[in-house]
């Protein structure tokens, strides 16, 4: 399969800050690449270069077979971008916003109008279509912005942190919409701070920090390599901690840490059944506990493993 997006050695500096430090990426046609990293990792800079908003200081990028540096206008005709801020005009209605974007993608006035209605219906915005988008919720605005990126049916879609700042329900709605798009065969580059999001939507994930890729693989590969699910047990009586730790050790992957009454260990494989096993064994041993739970790996865990620093540490540096 041909790569719809391909970048080699992208470098971008802003004064003394190196935002991108030799980033490579490939997005085969019809697949989804998740670019995962904390704020300031260089995700948005990469997106801006690939969507012609910025020019790289070094390196080469091709989108839909077109060089972004040589023919930016050609690239613009092949992409749809939905950015971090929902770039919708709050005084225009949803319909007017989409119609305007359609006109600027060179649809005729009539085509742009038809297309706008179509998209509003598809994104569940038809009831709100003729209200100024000022009255929309955050989730509705993001959906409208995404609809704007789809007006021209672009073969390549770029979504920069599409769910950052959304409440859980709007986030879920956004995911549903994106999943539907992806199943329709759109090539997608998605940036996100959430492993869960990359996990759910992306075929392939690149973890990026300080402008370079620090890990790459499918979601399962990354999680099994860099961030395991963990079991945490808190016993009622510190004297039982050692006994509980022995039980946890039977399912642990790596070392079991014990601190006062808390026992924690990474686990591999099917986390839920391990949790049940541990719970049953603790019950059998008549150890009374305050808490027993499983924690899914977060970007923080993957990060910690990869860089030895937490996401927030890394943000301070960037």
């Amino acid at each position, binding site marked *: 399969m041909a790569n719809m997006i391909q970048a080699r050695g992208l470098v971008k500096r802003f004064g003394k800050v190196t935002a991108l430090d030799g980033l490579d990426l490939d997005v085969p046609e019809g697949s989804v690449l998740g670019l995962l990293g904390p704020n300031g990792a260089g995700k948005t800079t990469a997106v*801006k270069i690939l*969507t*012609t*908003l*910025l020019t790289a200081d070094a390196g080469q990028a091709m989108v839909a077979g077109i060089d972004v540096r040589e023919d930016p*206008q050609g690239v*613009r*005709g092949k*992409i749809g*971008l939905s*950015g*971090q*801020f929902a*770039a919708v*005009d709050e*005084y*225009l209605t949803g319909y*007017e916003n989409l119609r*305007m*974007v359609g*006109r*600027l*993608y*060179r649809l005729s006035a009539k085509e742009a109008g038809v297309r706008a209605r179509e998209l509003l219906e598809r994104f569940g915005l038809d009831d709100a279509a003729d209200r*100024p988008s000022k009255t929309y919720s955050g989730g509705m605005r993001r959906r409208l912005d995404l609809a*704007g990126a789809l007006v021209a049916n672009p073969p390549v879609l770029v979504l920069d942190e599409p769910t950052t700042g959304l409440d859980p329900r709007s986030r879920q709605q956004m995911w549903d919409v994106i999943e539907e798009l992806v199943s329709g065969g759109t090539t997608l580059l998605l940036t996100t701070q959430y492993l869960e999001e990359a996990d759910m939507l992306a075929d392939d994930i690149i973890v990026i920090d300080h402008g370079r890729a620090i890990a790459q693989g499918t979601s399962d590969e990354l999680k099994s390599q860099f961030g395991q699910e963990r079991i945490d047990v808190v016993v009622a009586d510190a004297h039982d901690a050692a006994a509980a730790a022995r039980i946890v050790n039977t399912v642990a992957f790596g070392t079991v840490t014990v601190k006062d009454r808390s026992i924690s260990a990474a686990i591999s494989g099917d986390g839920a059944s391990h949790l049940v096993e541990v719970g049953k064994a603790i019950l059998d041993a008549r150890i009374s506990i305050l808490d027993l739970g499983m924690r899914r790996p977060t970007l923080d865990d993957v990060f910690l493993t990869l860089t030895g620093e937490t996401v927030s540490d890394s943000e301070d540096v960037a």
Partner: protein
Amino acid sequence: MNAPRVLIDGWVVAQRNLIKIKRVPEILVFVLISPIMFVVLFAYVFGGAIDAGPGLNYREFLIAGIFAQTVVFGATFTGASLAEDMQKGFIDRFRSLPMSRSAVLVGRTGSDIVYNVISLVVMALTGLLVGWRARGSFLDSVSAFLLLIVFAYAISWVMAYIGLIVPSVDVINNASFMVIMPLTFVSNAFVPLETFPSALQTFAEWNPVSTVTQAVRELFGNVPDGFVAPDAWSLQHPVVYTLIWVGIIVIVFVPLSVRQYVRASAK
């Protein structure tokens, strides 16, 4: 090559701006109130206090200056709107579309002409109420309004550039005031040039705000008989001199602003 494209895309962008006039009545109120305020304030507050010279009706003398000042101030709106679009990421959206590179600016400055036309109409009506009369021919009056609109359009491009280089909307008013205040006040807009110290007088004589004011004043027939004609070439030929400035501003600031637009990107 893509001249028609600029116009089509520019029109789409202008439509967006014009819809806002309907949706945000506050903007229109501001556009209407401030010229009324200027006319009434200057006519009644300063009108009696300042002696413009023998045989000179200050209120009549003043109107051309108020017109010029108001359209120059109005151009700030162009810059503020662009700065806001930039801050909200709207410019990025436009820049990712396969549209003409200058259409956003052409559309913006184009739609802002509508604001200027509205404010000129309102000012003229208010002026008539406070006793101002256009004493020249009808054609002269039309020329006067056209000159004001053309001049304002050029200033719009200066403000567009400022709007694209400032880091945020908050800065735009201060930044543009630093340009506008000296231009409008060190001019013949409100007081006859003879009252200035000589260095300032030279600046004022060649200041395009003075010449546009002078041109409009003459076209409206608001220059009294006994008025001493100024010596400077700029004020002897105010229409030509003003149009030269319009040309220079457009030649310099259109490419400058477009270049800035192409480079600019929200943080």
